[in-house]
Structure formats: C-alpha cells, structure tokens
C-alpha cells in the first residue's frame, strides 16, 4: 500500500503543473462576462457555461495527454525499469500511476469550476440543465478513465513501432464494422430485450465491458511485458482484442443460431392468414429474437420473411401463390418505422421502394423467388389474379400488370385528382378498379367503377355514384357486390360493383356497428352492440330484416369466415382479461351457440394488413390461435379440433 501511494504521489508531484494550469483556466469564466459587459442572469449563464466548457475541455484534453504518457513514454525511454528494479509490485505500479493520473485529470477538470462556484455559490444555472449531477459526474469520470486508457493503449501501439500496430488498426476497424453489423442485424433481438431491460442499462453494460477490457488490457500488458515495450504491446493486443473478438464472435454465432429457429421454436405473437389455403404469416419470438415466417399449416413447410420489410402482401384466390413487396430499407430503418407505428406515432410504415417477391405454395419445396418487378415507395396496392399468373401493382394514378416473370402486360393511367380505393381481378384478364374523386368545383365525393381489359389495354368506366366523406365499403368474395357503409347517416347500402347502382339499403340500428359482411347467399350479416350486449342482425339481399340474435354481454365482436353451410363463427370479447368466446351463428336457422373459448380467427385484420373477402369454407377460416398462442385447426361446423403449432 505504501508503494502504491508513493507511486501515485510521485505521478501527481511530477505533473503538478496541471493543477496550476487548471486554476488559471478557472479565472477565464470570471473574465468572460466582464469582457462582454454582461450583467445579471446573462453574466451568470455566460460564466457558468464557460466554466463547464473549460472543465470539459480540460478533462478531455488531460485524459488524452496524460493517458498517452502513462506508461508508453517511460517504456520507450527505458525509464520504466527504475520502478521495476524497486520492491513495487506490478499492480501497485499500475494502479499507482493510474490513480495519480486520474487525480490529475479529475482535478484538472474540477478546478476550472471552483472560482465560478465560489462566486455564484454553486452552479445553479447548470443544475437546471443537468438534474442528475452525481450520475453525470460519475459517468464523466468513467468516460475520462476510458479516454485515458484508450490514449495509453494507442500510444503503446504507436510507440512500439511493430507490425502489430497495423494489426491493431485492422482489428479495431474490423471489430467496429462487425459490431455495427451485429447491432443492426440484432435489432429483432434488441426489440425483445428492451422489453425486459432498459436500453440505458444495456448500453451502460456495454460501456462498462469495454472500459473493463481496456482496463484489464492495460494492467496485463504491464504485468506481462514489464520493461519490454514490444512485449507490453503484444500482451495489450491479446488482452484487448481477444475478449472483444470473442464476445463479437459469440454474438455473431448467437445471431446465426437465433435466426435459424423454426416456427415450432417461437413464442407466437401473432398469426395472420396469408391466403385462403392455410398459409399463415407468423410473428414470434424464438431464441430471443423477433422473427417472421410464412408457414403452411398443412405441410408444416415454412420460410422466413423479413417481417419489418414487408409492406404489402397479396395472394391468389386459389391459394397457390403469395406475393409481397419487400422494401430495400435497412433493417434499422424498417424497424424504426415499425416501432413508430407500434407507438402510434404514425400509421405510415411506407418508406423506400422495394421489390416484389413470390412464393409458389403448391410447389413440392416452396422457394421464395425475387421477381424483377419493383414496388415504388408511393405504391398503395398489390394483388394477384385468381390463378396467380398476373400481378398488379397500384401506384398513385397508375395500375401496372405483370406476369410472373416480370414482363409488363399493361400500364393503365387514370386521370389525376382521384385515388385508388380498391382493385381486384374480376375475371380472367379483367380488373375492377374503384376510384374515389372529388370534382374541383364541387364538394361531393364520387366513387367510380372502372373495368380494365388487360389483353386489349382498354379502360372502361362502368359506374359512378356519389358517396359520403365518412364511408367505407366491403366487397363480396366473388367481387360482384359492394356493401357501402355511410357512417354519418348510419346507412348500409348493397351496391352492384360494376354499375355502382344501389340494390338495397337499410339503417343500422345498433349503437355501434362492430363488424359486417356479405353472405354467400347474397344477404348481409351485421354485428353490433348496445350499451351492454352484442347482437347479430341478418338481412336479406333486398334489405329485409331476417332476424336479430342476442349473443350476450360483450364489449366487442368480430366475424370469422362463413362456413360452407352458411354459418358464421363470431369472436366475442367480454370483460377485459377474460377468455374470448367463439360462437357459431346459423344464418338459416337463426340460432347462435357457443362452440369454443379462447380461440381467435387468423382471418381477422391485424395491424395494417387489410382484411380480405374470404371464400366461404376456406381453410383459412378454420385456423385459430388459442389462449396459449398455439395455432389450432378448428372446424366450426363439426367441432373437430387439433393443435398444429405450439407456441413456446
């Protein structure tokens, strides 16, 4: 201990001029307001800010200068042997010099503040800026210590004049690149981790690890190399880069392992139908990482997709092909957009342009194919023909149709001033387009129906109807009819999709309409609430009420996919925290019965993925998520149920 104190004392005495310089620097903040002829609060702020800037500059400068001469100068000048020929243990020498230098740096940082503190009775203006002064000072000391050790390591590397110095540069650059790549690659892990650990704690741990490594490297270099600069540098190199490299390699191996998980190994967070044939888009957390898959519930085949980079997804109604637009955004940008959306800062997840990818689900071994079809950043829609042979992209006033190999079959321009509301293949080589537009001289909003003949490249306007600013519509699975809802008037209209001529209309009598759909028999099913209970209202195609069924107390309800025998599963949420109920509505007998608890249809819309009109009785309508998060196949008609994919 005596030796340690002697070394530290020696270090301080030898460089005591630092304190003198700091005291002189402390006078500057007092002179600044005088020179600028400031008074009152302005003088106070100017004095204290100058003192803070000076203190920071002194601290940083001294950390680098003293760090650079901590050991390397004496090693190079062969004067370190003076200490090593005395009964001073290596750790006493190392710690003594480090302590001495730290006292000099911290003293050199704090002394410029002293005159100002005496004059102003503390630093009240700065205290307003920096609430946690103690934490700030502690972090400042950690940062200064790190700077000092880093300067020491760099100066040893440079002064050793060995080829290893080049490797230092290579290792530093390489590890920084690898680290940056891993930080970006592991964003799906950070998102999961940050739910459990505060990001600041993780950052603090990383900083402390790096400071720890540099600290240990500094000690081990001196302990193992002692008087020989080249050996000191060699040991520093090993101790500095080996743990950093080992950690980075371990993290890289972890990232490979984490991202090689299968749907069977994840805790499922959401499962959405990706087409009618039983494919799901599954998001989940496996091996600590957030991952996304396309998963075939029938074969068990899966393929990983970069969930955050997927902007739009479409599928052929025969269920054989899925396409999606994958943006070129960096994972960082895509995830930031995703987080922004989750935080409800903005619903707009669109960003850069992308490319369209395609998966043939009916292939023996489904593989993702990247088409040469680009997906502009302004594009709004992506849909497929019934057999999946045609791909349509909707972008502002342009609708483009491609075949699977990316050949442009037609580009259809619409007049400016309108917007695409919906578009779908209404038949072989024909596309139905709904556009809403407002005439510049009139306040009304009009919906226009167009039909595109892709082969002949002809656009024909087939219908036009005035609509409300507060309306929405849903099309039938066959695409021949629309159910238009005027939310302001509480009116529902059945409309012919081609001519936009109203077939029938009826008033919504619920306090709140929660869901509605077109039935295969041409009728309509409505779900709604009054103050306490949830009801089903059935209407014929002519708008004639066919019956009203009370489902019980419920806060919210959603419709599933119609079965082949005209029944609708209905998901009902009761009290918060309680299991949801799944009821089956028999539209022919006008009855309702409870068929399961805790099952959520995968066909309901999640986040930004639009709910599609599902063909009655399709496989997707029989897929549910149970209360444990497992994917379950449940036939609402028969009650047959088995678990397909468990959530871990």
């Amino acid at each position, binding site marked *: 201990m005596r030796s340690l104190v*002697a070394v530290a004392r*020696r270090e301080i005495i030898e460089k005591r001029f630092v304190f003198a310089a700091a005291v002189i620097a402390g006078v500057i903040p007092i002179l600044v307001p005088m020179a600028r002829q400031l008074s009152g609060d302005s003088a106070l702020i100017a004095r204290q800010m100058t003192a803070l800037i000076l203190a920071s500059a002194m601290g940083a400068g001294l950390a680098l200068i003293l760090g650079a001469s901590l050991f390397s100068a004496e090693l190079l000048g062969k*004067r370190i*042997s*003076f200490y090593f020929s*005395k009964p*001073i243990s290596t750790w006493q020498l190392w710690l003594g010099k480090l302590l001495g230098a730290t006292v000099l740096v911290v003293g050199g940082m704090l002394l410029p503040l002293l005159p100002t503190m005496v004059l102003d009775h503390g630093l009240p203006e700065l205290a307003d800026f920096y609430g946690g002064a103690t934490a700030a000072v502690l972090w400042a000391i950690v940062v200064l210590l790190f700077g000092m050790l880093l300067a020491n390591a760099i100066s040893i590397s440079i002064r050793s004049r060995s080829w290893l110095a080049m490797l230092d540069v290579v290792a530093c650059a390489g590890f920084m690149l690898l680290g940056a790549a891993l930080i970006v690659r592991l964003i799906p892990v950070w998102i999961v981790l940050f739910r459990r650990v505060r990001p600041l704690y993780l950052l603090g741990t990383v900083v402390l690890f790096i400071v720890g490594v540099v600290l240990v490297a500094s000690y081990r270099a001196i302990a*193992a190399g002692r*008087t020989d600069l080249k050996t000191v540098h060699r040991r520093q190199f090993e101790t500095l880069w080996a743990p950093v490299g080992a950690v980075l390699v371990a993290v890289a191996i972890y990232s490979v392992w984490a991202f090689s998980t299968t749907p069977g190994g994840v805790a499922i967070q959401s499962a959405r139908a990706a087409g009618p044939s039983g494919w799901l888009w599954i998001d989940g957390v496996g091996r600590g990482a957030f991952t996304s898959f396309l998963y075939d519930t029938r074969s068990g085949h899966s393929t990983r997709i970069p969930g955050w980079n997927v902007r739009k997804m479409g599928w052929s109604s025969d269920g054989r092909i899925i396409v999606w637009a994958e943006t070129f955004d960096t994972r960082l940008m895509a995830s930031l957009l995703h987080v922004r959306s989750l935080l409800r800062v903005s619903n707009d997840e669109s960003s850069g342009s992308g490319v369209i990818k395609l998966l043939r689900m009916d292939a023996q071994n489904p593989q993702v194919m990247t088409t040469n079809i680009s997906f502009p950043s302004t594009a709004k829609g992506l849909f497929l023909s019934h057999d999946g042979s045609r791909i349509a992209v909707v972008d502002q006033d342009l609708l483009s149709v491609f075949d699977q190999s990316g050949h442009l079959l037609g580009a259809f321009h619409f007049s400016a001033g309108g917007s695409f509301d919906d578009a779908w293949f209404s038949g072989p080589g024909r596309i139905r387009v709904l556009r809403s537009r407002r005439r510049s001289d009139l306040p009304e909003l009009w919906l226009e129906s167009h039909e595109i003949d892709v082969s002949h490249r002809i656009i024909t306007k087939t219908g036009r109807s005035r609509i409300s600013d507060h309306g929405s519509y849903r099309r039938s699975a066959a695409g021949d009819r629309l159910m238009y809802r005027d939310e302001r008037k509480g009116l529902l209209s059945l409309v012919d999709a081609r001519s936009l001529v109203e077939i029938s209309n009826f008033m919504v009598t619920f306090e709140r309409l929660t869901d509605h759909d077109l039935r295969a028999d041409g009728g309509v099913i409505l779900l709604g609430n009054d103050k306490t209970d949830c009801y089903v209202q059935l209407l014929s195609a002519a708008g004639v009420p066919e019956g009203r069924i009370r489902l019980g107390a419920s806060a919210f309800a959603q419709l599933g996919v119609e079965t082949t025998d005209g029944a609708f599963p209905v998901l009902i949420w009761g009290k918060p925290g309680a299991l949801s109920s799944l009821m089956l509505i028999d539209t022919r007998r006008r009855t309702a019965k409870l068929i399961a608890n805790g099952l959520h249809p995968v066909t309901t819309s999640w986040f930004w993925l639009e709910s599609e009109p599902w063909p009655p009785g399709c496989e997707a309508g029989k897929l549910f998520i149970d209360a444990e998060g497992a994917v379950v196949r449940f036939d609402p008609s028969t009650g047959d149920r088995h678990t397909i994919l468990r959530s871990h």
Partner: protein
Amino acid sequence: MSSTSANSPAAEVERLTVRYGRTLACDAVSLAVSPGSVYALLGRNGAGKSSLVQCLLGARKPSSGFARLFGTDSWKERARLLSRVGVVPEEPDAPPAMTARQLSDFCRRLYARWDSAAVEARLARFGVAPDVAFGRLSKGQKGQVLLALALASSPDLLVLDDPTLGLDVVARRAFWDELLDDLSDRGTTVFLTTHDLASVEGIATRVGVLKSGRLVVDEEVDALKARFRRIRYGNRITETRTAYGTELDQFDAVGVKVRGWGVEAVVSNWDPEAFERFRGIDGVEDAESSGLSLEEIFIAVAGESPRAEAAKGEAR
C-alpha cells in the same frame, strides 16, 4: 528477513534461455552466485549479459529456464525479492525531473530499511549536489547517485549491470572505491556485469564469460588464472616438424600465434609438470610461461567475433 535456506545461492539462473524473435540472447545459461561472493559476468556487447540481468531482476520473463533470487523465482516474486536487492542499471533510468534527494525520499517509502543519511554522505563523497535534477547530472554522477540509492537499503545482494559504462577514469575509480568500502564493511553479495575488467580483477571472486549467449567460463578467479597461462617458445624446424606440432594440445590452447621468433600460445589447461615435459620436446627451445590478467583471459576466450564463430560452426 530471508525466507530461503542458507544454502540457497543469492542469485542463480538455470538453463536460462532468452529469445528476441529469432535472435537468441541467452542459450541455456546456468550459473549461481554464492552468498558473500562477487560474481563478475563478462562478455562482449550483445553477448546476453543485460538480458540475463533483466531476467534475474524479474523485469523480463525468460523464454525458458529459471532465474531465482535467494532461491525464489524472481519473475513471480519480484517485488518481495527486490526489497533485499540494490540495483544499478546499465542506463541511468531514474525520472529526470527528480533530484537525488527526492529520489532518496521516494525510495525511503519502498524499503523497510533505508539510510537517508548514508545517501547524503555518499553523495557528498562523490561531490554530487543532492538538489539538482537527475536529468541534469553527468553520466558519472548519475551512476554515483544510483549506487548511493542501491546501497542505502543495505541490500543482501547488489546487482550492477555494467555500471561504469561510459564513465571517465576518475568516476570509474570513485565508483569502484565506494563499492569496495561497502564490500569491506558488510560483505554484500555482488553480481555484476562489466567491461571494466581491470577494475573488477581485484574485486571479483568468481567470473563467468558469456559468448554469443552461451556461458563458456564459470569459475573462481584464482582457479581461472591458474588454468590460463601464456607459453612462448622458439620453434626449431626439423625433418619431422614443419611448423609446430600437436604438443600444445595437452594444454588446451585457446589461441596460438606463430611469430618470426617462434610460437606464442594462450592455454587454458596449464600444468607445471606437463610444462616441464613440454620443454624437453625436440624442436621446442627456450620455452617459458607467464600469468595472464583477467582481461587477457577474457580476450582469449571471448575475443573471436561471433561472425567468425558462426563461420566456424558452418564449416563444421
């Protein structure tokens, strides 16, 4: 004070090897310094003396083998062992801004025993001002300050690594005189390396010679001087003798020069009886022998340049 047994050498190296990359500085060197002895390790520049001293002081880790002080590994227990050792390095290494008095004050805190008055007295004898910064002293004065510091803790072992290198004659004399005084007072064990052979001849009790990293001599000084002698004789050419014969082989000649008047040889295995028989050999005339100084023995042993040695090795 000492945790080692009385039989342990004060300093020893065992099969000590030091490498700098591909360069071999010490090649499996083994030697021991008995308590109370003065061991002079001699060698030409680059022979490996300083590397051996650094290993002995725990400042450098041997590539292989061991270096021990008082029977204990000096790399592992350096700090504890050095509390019993005074060191004067080859290059004055004290912080240049410190004065001799400040250095003494600094060292005082490191040793259990410290005689500041003795430091002052020695500095006075050397004529070194105690309040002048170390960096401003002459090289001789620096050496004297370091010797004063090395002796102030009354060490059991004094390690001097070529301490008079670059000093003028007067400074050298003053240095050795001070050392001799301490030796006569306390009987300190000394391990030193030097090129100043004339000065250590009267001090050293044992000598080691390093040649290209190998210890080629490790012997008591008296025995060494008895073994090494110079033989001069006239060499008469006869029908059976063309130059000189194999008669010198019995003396293990380490250097032979054929002069105009005859032959001069330095032998390393002198034997008076054998010399009498040698004198009777036909062709050997007026043979006489004389003793050698330590310097002459050193030149005979270590004189051949490493390059020549290497060339000889390659030829073999």
